């Protein structure tokens, strides 16, 4: 039986580990040259910082995952530097790209562990050099030992905001401010009395306390207004409004921003997995059962790509999906392990719900962005242009959902395929049409999921 595992982050590592344990030799694909995913990404050879410096309070977990990763590589058909750019599941075929060469492989089953990326809300100036996602700012530090600028502001909401700011401060970077769009009361209200993960909460409070103790400016309940700069290739300040309505301008050379993360689900989408809107995490997620089985036979999803749960959940979900593969193939599955992991996953899901309530996606911030804001950075489509697509008096009538609006405006039609702007664009259009994100739909996935050199595609070999 040939099982493919796509992705070598926390979910992929634990999935492969279980398949290997059952005597299989899975085909293991990752776009990156090494595994670990983005959360436990290792720097290239020649970097010397140890796990404690790289992963902080998560060092032990990172080291355990790296050990499992390195042990599983020789036991699997490990193919790093390999992009899966399409899935044609009628033939159970994965389409790969490795060093500029395309190839198709046929498998019996696949576990998609495709991870997540930052969810962003565009604001005027966000396309300027000097602005990155929170995840990007973290990768610059972790994998390259660099800060995104001499003086950095972190903006957004969610656990990553505080974690990245803390990591920057600890590494000796100049953190000018941490600006949280969620008010303190909202967070407190969501966590008080709700089941939450005491360890995660304690870590969060620790990061906030350390930042404050270091004298970093911290503000909650803020409204970002614009990122400004005198030179076109640099920024000089972030303008924002505090909870009391006062306007501020914080001088900085870089801004890291993000509001939680969203699943990378393009491959599941292309494989025909139904995608539904999850109102708790305010994300589109592939349909799956508790173990990661999708309604498409032979296709499984695990980790953040299957719905946001974080790295701890991803490890357990990866192991469960592998057990589901074994069970469905009539191979002996470890039911005891599955039962134990399922209990822990149910508990984590309750914690997650509290976390999502504490750090909700700022719908109104997205919906009310100024008309002149570049919303789609690939195609330079403004929020105003998208709003115009919702007007019934336009040449084509009103776009009733987001894919129609894409056809009218080219929003989400660029090289990122709406990964970056899709979530915010949906809110802009939904507000204009008087509906919500679930009602406005989502940008459908298209192959190739990432740009492909034409000669590679023409030469695909099966």
């Amino acid at each position, binding site marked *: 039986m040939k099982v493919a595992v796509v992705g070598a982050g926390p979910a992929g590592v634990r999935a492969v580990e279980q398949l290997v344990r059952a005597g299989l030799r899975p085909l293991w694909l990752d776009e990156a040259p090494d595994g670990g995913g983005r959360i436990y990404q290792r720097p290239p050879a*020649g970097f010397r910082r140890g796990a404690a410096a790289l992963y902080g309070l998560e060092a032990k977990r990172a080291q355990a995952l790296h050990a499992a990763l390195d042990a599983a590589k020789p036991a699997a058909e490990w193919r790093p530097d390999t992009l899966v750019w399409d899935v044609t599941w009628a033939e159970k075929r994965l389409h790969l790209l490795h060093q500029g060469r395309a190839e198709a492989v046929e498998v019996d089953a696949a576990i998609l562990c495709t991870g997540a990326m930052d969810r962003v809300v565009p604001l005027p100036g966000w396309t300027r050099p000097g602005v990155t996602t929170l995840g990007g700012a973290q990768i610059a530090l972790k994998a390259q030992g*660099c800060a995104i600028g001499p003086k950095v502001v972190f903006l957004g909401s969610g656990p990553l905001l505080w974690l990245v700011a803390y990591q920057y401060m600890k590494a000796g970077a100049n953190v000018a401010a941490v600006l949280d769009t969620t008010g303190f009361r909202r967070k407190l209200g969501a966590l008080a009395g709700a089941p939450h993960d005491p360890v995660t909460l304690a870590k969060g409070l620790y990061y906030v306390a350390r930042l404050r103790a270091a004298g970093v400016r911290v503000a909650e309940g803020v409204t970002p207004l614009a990122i400004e700069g005198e030179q076109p290739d640099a920024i000089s300040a972030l303008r924002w409004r505090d909870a009391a309505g006062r306007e501020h301008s914080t001088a900085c050379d870089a801004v890291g921003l993000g509001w939680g993360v969203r699943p990378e689900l393009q491959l599941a989408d292309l494989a025909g997995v139904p995608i539904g809107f999850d109102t708790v995490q305010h994300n589109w997620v592939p349909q799956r059962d508790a173990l990661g089985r999708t309604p498409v036979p032979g296709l499984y999803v695990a980790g953040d790509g299957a719905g946001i749960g974080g790295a701890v959940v991803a490890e357990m979900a990866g192991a469960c999906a592998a057990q589901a593969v074994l069970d469905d193939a009539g191979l002996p599955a470890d039911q005891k392990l599955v039962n134990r992991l399922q209990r822990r996953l149910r508990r984590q899901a309750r914690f997650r719900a509290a976390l999502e309530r504490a750090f909700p996606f700022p719908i109104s911030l997205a919906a009310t962005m100024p008309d002149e804001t570049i919303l789609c950075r*690939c195609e330079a489509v403004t929020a105003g242009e998208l709003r115009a697509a919702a007007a019934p008096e336009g040449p084509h009538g009103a776009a009733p959902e987001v894919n129609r609006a894409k056809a009218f405006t080219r929003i989400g039609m660029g090289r990122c395929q709406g990964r970056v702007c899709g979530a915010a664009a949906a809110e802009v259009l939904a507000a204009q049409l008087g509906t919500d994100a679930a009602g406005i739909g989502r940008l459908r996935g298209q192959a190739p999921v990432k740009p492909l050199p034409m000669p590679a595609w023409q030469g695909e070999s099966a």
Partner: protein
Amino acid sequence: MRLVRLADQDRPEITFCFEGAACTAREGDTLLTALLAGLAGFLRQSEFEDGPRAGFCLMGACQDCRVMVEGQGRVRACTTRCTAGMRVRRA
């Protein structure tokens, strides 16, 4: 945009070529690091004339950091390793 080298920077220097000029990087740098920790300032001009760009996600998703590498064509600077002798241009 200027990246600041903070940690793990005692790696051997390598030289590469950007827009015809010799530049230095360190072994293990991505092209994005090599260019933006240097003096490039930005990586490309938006084809819609809304200004220069220098990447955004740094994890291979947003496709905003593309540059031209001789012999390889258009690549993402954030996921491409800078190697000695590489000849790079703005995309």
